C-alpha cells in the first residue's frame, strides 16, 4: 500500500488522498497566445521512470495539497511537503 507522510496528519494510506499529477509543470503565463506552449502544458507529460514530484490533496484529512517525492520505478516514497508553504496566501 502506498503510504503518504502528511506533514500535518502523519503517514496515511493513499486512499485518503486525491492524486493531482506531476508537480513540475508550469502553466503558461495567463493570457499567453502561444498555442504550442498551451498544447505542451495541457497534453504532454514527462512521465519519468524514476524520481517524480507530484501533487496529492489530503481530502480525508487536513485537506491540504502536498508535494510528494516518489520513485515511479521502485514505488519508494520520500518526503512530502506542503504545496503552499504556511503564510503564503
Amino acid at each position, binding site marked *: *500500500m502506498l503510504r503518504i507522510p502528511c506533514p500535518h496528519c502523519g503517514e496515511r494510506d*493513499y486512499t485518503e488522498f486525491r492524486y493531482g499529477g506531476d508537480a513540475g509543470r508550469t502553466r503558461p503565463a495567463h493570457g499567453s497566445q502561444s*498555442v504550442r506552449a498551451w498544447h505542451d502544458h495541457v497534453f*504532454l*507529460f514527462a*512521465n519519468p521512470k524514476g524520481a517524480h514530484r507530484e501533487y496529492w490533496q489530503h481530502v480525508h484529512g487536513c485537506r491540504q495539497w502536498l508535494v510528494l517525492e516518489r520513485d515511479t520505478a521502485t514505488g519508494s516514497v520520500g518526503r512530502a511537503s506542503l504545496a503552499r508553504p504556511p503564510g503564503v496566501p
Partner: protein
Amino acid sequence: MKLLSRYSAFGLARRALTGARWQRAWRAASPRGSYDVVVVGGGGHGLATAYYLAARHGIRSVAVLERGYLGSGNVGRNTTIVRSNYLLPGNTEFFEHSLKLWEGLSHELNFNVMLSQRGQLVLAHNPVQLDVLARKGNTMRLNGIDAELMQRADVERFLPFLDYSRECRFPIYGGLLQRRAGTARHDAVAWGYARAADRLGVDIIENCEVTGFLRAGERITGVETTRGRIGAGRTAVSVAGHSSHVMSLLGMRLPVESHLLQAFVTEPIKPFLDCVISFGAELFYVSQSDKGGMVFGGHIDGFNSYTQRGQFPKVQTVAECAVALIPSMSRLRLLRHWAGIQDMTPDGSPLIGRTPFRDLYLNGGWCYQGFKATPAAGWCLAHTIATEQEHPLIRHLALDRFERGNGSDEYGLGLRTWVQ
C-alpha cells in the same frame, strides 16, 4: 539455421507415436549489424508489425528487440477481450478491421490463438445508458458490424445469475451484445506472431534493451542496445507502457502517462459464464477462462507508476463490482492478481504512425484496448513503414492530433487519465 516446419495434424500424430521432440518455436537470434527495419518491443504489437512487414510487404530484414523475454509485457498480462463495438468514426472501422483479422489469425499464423467468439455484453443500468448503447449499436450496424440491443428481460434470459433483485444497487435495464466479440489466448498471440515472423526470416532478439538512438540530424539511423549498436533503415517503437521512457531518450515528451492496471483470476470452477460481460455502472469486465477461473479487471490504480505492482484498495473495488453484478461470485477465492504498465493518453485513444523524426515510427498509448488492436495495429504500422504512406485506418490516431484539436475521446474520459 533451418527454418521451422509447419504445425499439422500429421506432425502431431507422428510425434505422439514416435515421441520425437518439438523444435523450439523460434530461433534464438543474435543481433546483426543492421536491418532494414528494427522494431523495438517484443509485445503483441511489435511482433505483429514485424510479421506483416515480412508477410505482406516482403521486408524480411527485420529485427524485433525485446528488453526481457517475449510476452513479458502487457500482451501476457491482459484480460484478453477482443471486440469491435466502437462509436466514433475511425475507431469503428479500425477495430472492425482488427476483429476480421482475428477471425482468420489461427490459420494465417499456423498457430492456434484460441479465439473464442463467445460474445460480449455491455450492460446499461439506467435508461440513458441504454439509449447510448442503442446509438452505438446502430452505428455498428450501419458499418456492417453485428450488434443486438437487449432489454432487461432478454438479459435475464441470457444471463440468469446476474443480480435482478429489487434491492440491487445497479438495476439492469438492458445491454448491447456483440456475438462476434470474445477472448483469445494472450500468450499464443505473442508466440504465434513470433513463430510466423521467424519463419519468414525475422530475427527475434530477447534480453536486448534499447538504451539510445543513432541519429544523423533529424533522421534516426539505428539504436543503441545492451547487446551493441544496431543500424536500421527504419525504426518502430512499440513498447506500450515504456513509450514515454524510450522516446525521452530523444528528448521527446508524449501525451502518455504510465499507470498500473491490475487483472484478477479466481480458483477454477465448472463452466458458468459463457460470454464476456462489461458492467455499466463502473469499469469492470469479466469472463471465464478455459481453465475455469473467472478473469476480471477494472480501472487503473490512479497514479503513474512503472512498478507493475498493484495496490490493495483496487482489489477491493473490483471484487465489490464482481459481487454487485454476480452475487454468487462472493463465494469464490481469488487465486492470483498482477499488474501491467498501462500507457494512458489524454483522450483514451492510441498514438500510431509517424514521429517528428525521419524514419522513426511510434505505436503506443493503447490504454485499455491494445490487445484487441494487436493485428490491426501491426497491419497498419507495417503498411505505413513499408509504403511511407500513413494507412487510412490510423489517420485519426496521429501523434499530432491534439495540436490540431482532433482528440478522439471514445469514452468521454477527459484529459486527466487518472480521474475515475
